[in-house]
C-alpha cells in the first residue's frame, strides 16, 4: 500500500491552514500577528489553486493565479507594515486594543 498524497490531502491541509489563519486573525491582539494570519489565509488559497490545477483541470491557470497572489501578498505586507510602523510612532504600541480612540 502506498501513501501517495492525493487531491484531498492538499485540500484538507489548505482548509486547516485557513482555519489557523482565521483563528490568528480573530484572536491575536498584536497587529503583526494579525498580518501573519492573513499570510496563512493567502497561502491556504495558494495550496488550493495549485492542487486543483494539478489534479482537476490539468492546466496552468491555477499556477498563474498563485504567482499573482504571491506578488500581491508582498505588496500588501509592505503597505501594512508601513502603516503598523506609523501606528507605533503615534501610540508606542502595536497592540490593537490600545489603538482605539474612535468609537460610537
Amino acid at each position, binding site marked *: 500500500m502506498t501513501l501517495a498524497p492525493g487531491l484531498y490531502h492538499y485540500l484538507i491541509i*489548505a482548509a486547516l491552514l*485557513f482555519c489557523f*489563519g*482565521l483563528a490568528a*486573525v480573530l484572536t491575536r491582539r498584536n*497587529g503583526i500577528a*494579525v*498580518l501573519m*494570519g*492573513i499570510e496563512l*489565509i*493567502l497561502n*491556504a*488559497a495558494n495550496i*488550493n*489553486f495549485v*492542487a*486543483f490545477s494539478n489534479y*482537476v*483541470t490539468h492546466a496552468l*491557470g*491555477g499556477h*498563474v*493565479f498563485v504567482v*499573482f*497572489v504571491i506578488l*500581491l501578498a508582498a*505588496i*500588501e505586507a509592505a*503597505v*501594512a507594515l*508601513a*502603516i*503598523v510602523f*506609523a*501606528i507605533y*510612532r*503615534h*501610540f508606542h504600541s502595536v497592540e*490593537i486594543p490600545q*489603538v*482605539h*480612540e*474612535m468609537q*460610537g
Partner: protein
Amino acid sequence: MPPSVIVEIKNSMGYFYPELILSVTFLIVLIAEIISKRSSYITLGVITILGLLASMFAAYQLYSMEQTYIFFRMMTVDHFAIFFKLVFAVSTILIVLFTMNSNELKRYDAGEYYCLMIASVLGMNLLASANNLLMIWLALELVSIPSYLLSGFLKEDRLSAEASLKFVLYGSVSTAIMLFGLSYLYGFTGAYELSSIREAIMNGAIPSGVLLITVSLILVGIGYKIAAVPFHFWCPDVYQGSPLVITAFFSIGPKAAGFALLIRFFYGIFAKGGPNFEVVGNFNWPMMMALISAVTMTVGNVVALWQTSMKRMMAYSSIAHVGYMMMGFVLLNSEGIQSILFYVLIYLVMNLGAFLVVIAVSSKIDSDNLSEYRGLMLRSPLAASVLTVFMLSLTGIPSLGGFVGKFYLFMAAWHAKFYWLVILAAVNSVVSFAYYGGVVKRMILEEGTVKDKITLPRISTVLLTVLAILTFFMGLYWLPFAEFSQQSANMLLERVSIALK
C-alpha cells in the same frame, strides 16, 4: 508569441483607452512631482483633472461602439462597465476640485496623493469591466491598497493612522477570505471566466453545501467593499479618521465599484436569462441578499441616530444607502439594476454635495462635531441652505433628486413582490429624517455660541451651487438620467444572454 495573440492584444488596445490614459496620467504626475521641487496641489490637480477628463471622453467614445470582450475575455467592454467608468471619473474630478482648497492636506506631498488616487481609480475601472476571477481579485486589490495609504495620509495625525490600521487589517483579511472562496470556485468548476463558471454550475459541478460556503466566503470580500452589514465595521472609523476629502472619495467611487462587481459577479454566475432572470445553482441567494439589505439599511439608519460626529453620521448614512441600493440587486430583473444605476447617479450628486459643504465648513471651524453646526444659517447662509437641500434629498423629500431615486428603487421592488422590503425601506426613510433633519434643525433653528461669518472660497461656492441646482433638477426632470441608466443596464443583460449561447 503566436501571431493570433498579438492580433488579439492589438485589437483589445482600441477598447482600453480609458485605462491607458489613466496609467499615463499616473506617470505624468509622478514625473512632474520629481522634476518640480515644489509641487502644489493646484498644478498637479489640474494635470489629474485633465487626465480624468480625457479618460472620461475615451470611455464615452466607447459607449457608441460595439460591446465586446477584450484581452481573451479577461474584460468586458459593455455599457454597464462604461457607465461606471464615467461615474468614477466624474466623482474623482469633483474630489480633486475639493482637494485644491482643502487646508488639511497642505503640509503633505501632492504628488503622492494624486498618484494614489489615480491608481485607485484605475483599479475601479478594471473592476467594473472584469470578467475573470483573476482580474476581479487583482482589480479589487488595486482599488484597496492605495485606499489604505490614502486613509492614513495625514502622517502627523493619530486618528488618521488608526483609521489606516483598521482599514488595512479589515481590508486584507476580507480580500484574503474572498481569495479562498475563489479558489474553491475555480477548483470545482475548473474555469476562470464568469460565463464558463455558470455553465459548469448549471451542469451541477458544485454540491449545494460547498456552493453556499464558497459564496459566503466571496461575499466577505464584496461586502467589505460596499460596507454592507455585517462587514461594515471598518466604515465609521475609517470615515472619521481619514482626511475629509478622502472620506468623500471613499463614499462614492469604491462603493460604486463594489456594486459593479456585486452585480456582474452574481448576475454573471448565479443567474441566467434576462430581462427576467432565473437563479442558477441550488440555493436562494436573492433571499439571503434581501435579508442583508434589510439589516444593512436598518443598522445604518438606527446607529446614525446617536452620532455626534458629522463624519461618523455620514458613514452610517452611507451604509444605509447601500442597503437601499441592494434592494434593486435582489429583484432578479433589469428594472432592479436600472434603478441601482439611477440611484448611483443621484447619490453621487447629493452625497458629494453634502461632503463638499462639510469640507468647506470644517476648514473654517476645525471640528466635525455636529453641535458646531448650530446657527450656521446666520454664519454662512449659502452653506446652510445648500446643506439643507442635500440633507433633505438624502432623506428622500419629494421634488428633490433623492426622492426620485428612492421611488424608482421602491417601485422596482414592489413590482417584484418584495413588499416587506419596501415597507421596511419606507420606515427606514422616515427614521433617517430624524438625523438628517436634526442637522437642518441645528443649522436653522438653534443658536450657536460663535457668531462670526464664514466666507467660502469662490470655487466651493460655484461647485456647491451647481450641485444643489443639479439635485433640484434631478428631482424635477430626471428623464435623461433615467434613460441613460436604463440603457446602461439593458446592455449588460444583452451581453449575458449572448454569452449563454
